[in-house]
């Protein structure tokens, strides 16, 4: 039998890397409540004011508190991009920051893209080109693609692939996503 490694018995699996790092010592609930911070931010054009624990991730705030479940959670470790939203117009992975860091800032989620029932051209292109299957990566993928086109209105295939590299999709093999971004670019340029 293998000798017991010192410290093995107390080794625990680490759960969510970011989540965990900031959870650790805050186990006194009263202390946690008293540490709550007030934040004020704009989401999809509407103003929100809430009290949140400093450790609360922005994605959890958006989904659980503010009620925007369009952005998804695929990893909580800033790899998959499913949680991508626009913060002051720039695409960010909302599991990578705390809600308190969004204080005073402006967030756009997938729910805020269509205006007056009119789909955003990138949404329309994703639909036309069959750029989604299960749809789980889609909200993040669309937010990233939108940003990509804002920065580079006529991307090459290679630039598109590079631009969406931070967003994982397990269903589509990406080809139809590339087509959708190209189609949205062509439409905007037309």
């Amino acid at each position: 039998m293998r000798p017991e490694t010192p410290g093995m018995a107390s080794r625990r699996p680490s759960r969510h890397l970011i989540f965990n790092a900031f959870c650790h010592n805050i186990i006194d609930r009263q202390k946690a409540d008293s540490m709550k911070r007030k934040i004020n931010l704009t989401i999809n054009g509407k103003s929100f004011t809430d009290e949140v624990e400093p450790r609360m991730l922005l994605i959890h705030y958006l989904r659980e508190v503010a009620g925007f479940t369009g952005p998804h959670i695929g990893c909580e470790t800033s790899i998959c991009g499913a949680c991508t939203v626009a913060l002051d117009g720039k695409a960010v992975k909302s599991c990578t920051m705390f809600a308190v860091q969004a204080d005073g800032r402006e967030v756009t989620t997938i729910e805020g893209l269509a205006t007056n029932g009119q789909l955003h051209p990138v949404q329309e292109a994703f639909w036309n080109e069959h750029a989604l299957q299960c749809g789980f990566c889609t909200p993040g993928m669309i937010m990233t693609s939108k940003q990509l086109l804002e920065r580079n209105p006529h991307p090459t295939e290679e630039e598109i692939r590079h631009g969406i590299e931070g967003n994982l999709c397990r269903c589509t093999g990406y080809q139809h996503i590339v087509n959708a971004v190209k189609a949205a670019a062509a439409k905007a340029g037309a």
Partner: protein
Amino acid sequence: MATTITKTETLVGKRIRRQEDPRLITGTATYVDDIKMPGMHHACILRSPHGAAKIRSIDIKPAQDLPGVAAVFTGKDVEGVGPVPCGASLPGLRVPPHAILAKDRVYFIGHPVAVVVATDRYIAADALDLIEVDYEPLPTVTDPEKALAAGAPAVHPEWPDNTAFLYHQEGGDPETAFKEAEVVVKQRITSQRLIPTAMETRGVVAEYRSAEKSLTLYSSTQIPHLLRTLVSQMLGLAENHLRVITPEVGGGFGSKLNVYAEEALMGFVAMKIGKPVKWIESRRENFQCTIHGRGHVDYYEVAAKRDGTVLGLRLKLIQDLGAYHQLLTPAIPTLSVLMMPGLYKFRNVTADIVGVFTNCVPTDAYRGAGRPEATHGIERMMDLLAAELKMDPAELRLKNFIGKDEFPYATATGLSYDSGNYAEPLKKALDLVDYHKLRQEQKQAKASGRLLGVGISTYGEICAFGPSPATPAGGWESATVKIEPSGKVTVMTGASPHGQGEETTFAQIAADELGVPIDDVIVVHGDTAVVQYGIGTFGSRGTAVGGPAVYYALQELKKKIRKFGEMLLETTDVTVSGGQCVDNRTGKSVSLAQIAGASYRAMKLPPNTEPGMVATYFWEPPNFAFPFGAHIVVSEVDRETGHVEIKRYVAVDDCGNIINPLLVDGQVHGGVVQGLGQALYEQAVYDDDGQLITGELMDYAIPKASMVPWIESSHTITPSPVNPLGVKGVGEAGTIGCSPAVVNSVVDALSHLGVKHIDMPMTPEKLWNLVHQGGQA
């Protein structure tokens, strides 16, 4: 009578964008984690940090005392809950009891040990850290070949040989074939453990209403009805008091074709605390505790004549099962054996499977489930044989294909291939890459020192599962079609699509059969309280088995439409088309809405006819369907970095008739990229202590957009005679065809260095070493 505008254009066969997309592109779809209920609690699960250990004691008190914690349960609390079921049966199969929470021993990293339920997820996570478990770590074994060696640690102490089952299958006279062979090639080929990695992890919401004794489970699953049957047994609940709802499901690929401990556990918790409870799997848990795929070590031998005619095939298959059986774990390698002859006339075959326990999470169905392993094996062996005989690999394949006039073809493994023309997709793919010119270019490239390779794979797959006698839980699928009093059409399918697009393809079928606009049709699925019993979506069966069920339900319905039409039009000769029933003599018509309305008002009924406009059909397929195709890869290995660049990827797939080419392309692309992941990037790695080294997306490389090539996809069409739609299924084709094409191309690129075989994943490090050590890794 009124004439309405008729819809003449048919939809089947057209590239139509999907009906399900508006909710998905606007962020308004509901996945499990989007569900919120009054009083809902959150569960987090404490899992074993050891690959194997005895549990000496568990102290849950500090966790229970944390404000906000409603309950903590451990193994002894759930003793009354039945074991996680294994649905596969094989002679002599050893089935270790698989409790939903471990009690005195853990068998793999991530094995659930306790569950904490709290008012919010952060508190539940905090409380997990307060549970003290005293473990006594035990030796582990994570490699299946090491597990078979004498003196290896026993995963289950009662079975020291770590062998769960032995399985033998034989056809023809393999012994004579090998005796008479002029050439025999042998190779050990692995198909490494993979992590399915659906982008949505698993998740469950459970709600119990004690006065009704009714439990509702929202689960991210591919099989709502089977889940209901099995979880109700585990919980001792009447089956009709359990309702399973699959909201939007964010990908499955087989990993959600299962019944998991957590599904019963959340039911148990909800029943105990009297509040709704939600558990969402973290990505780390998903990697540790949701099934893995593949996990083969295969020893192949092919017997042939010098002219390239294949004679016999011998396989010893070592299947890494993990610590337990999940729903289909031991059955998966038997599919590999069924398909091991591929598209070739192997009349003499023999296979032995050893199912091996290891201290790892169980393997089970992952996209392709057994067939990618088989195809990888036989397609590598055909290349090895071609190299041995100095024959062109395309020529060798064409020489040994089952001929197009030989269908239905009885294989040496007992299957009956439905239809095929195997040379056609290969010839088409060869034309598309301009094969002869390509070989010239390759010669020149190699002469100038470039490592350019061409790889061919021709695959056949078994899908459309399947005739019921060949499946553990029934192989049919069901459909109900109703025309509402207003004339709108509702299709309810027992299949449970989760991204494949059947809300669109089934609507196309219904719209065509009834002649109504597609927007008049909705397709409902995934709620056991609403939809008749069904089997589910897996094994490329959604369209190939669920589709015919819809078709036949529509035929039943049309009979009834005709009867009401004849009554209303006072005639005996009508046709249903264009959304109406037309009197063939006078041209007078009644609309479907009028007919449906009359059927529900029932002022008058045709003879021997019930009111209402509903038909249900359970369709049992007479056979599997066997899609096939050819994939060709042109790749180049970078001498300096060992990196593989895929220069061309040509896929010619034959999945029978095509209902929506846009969706079929999507399935091919997604499938190919998962195959590419296996060929080049992915591998689940456990260390000797049982620790999962590739435990996060950070360490497990699923392909990103920049890591995959453009896929040139095209088709040949050989309808299946098995079903009235002539479809074969396409969900897994890309994955099955891909990996051998990629590996064959890279081996070809390095063949002049003496490289004959490379195991997957072909990482840059592995290839760099091969290049720089003269073909020796």
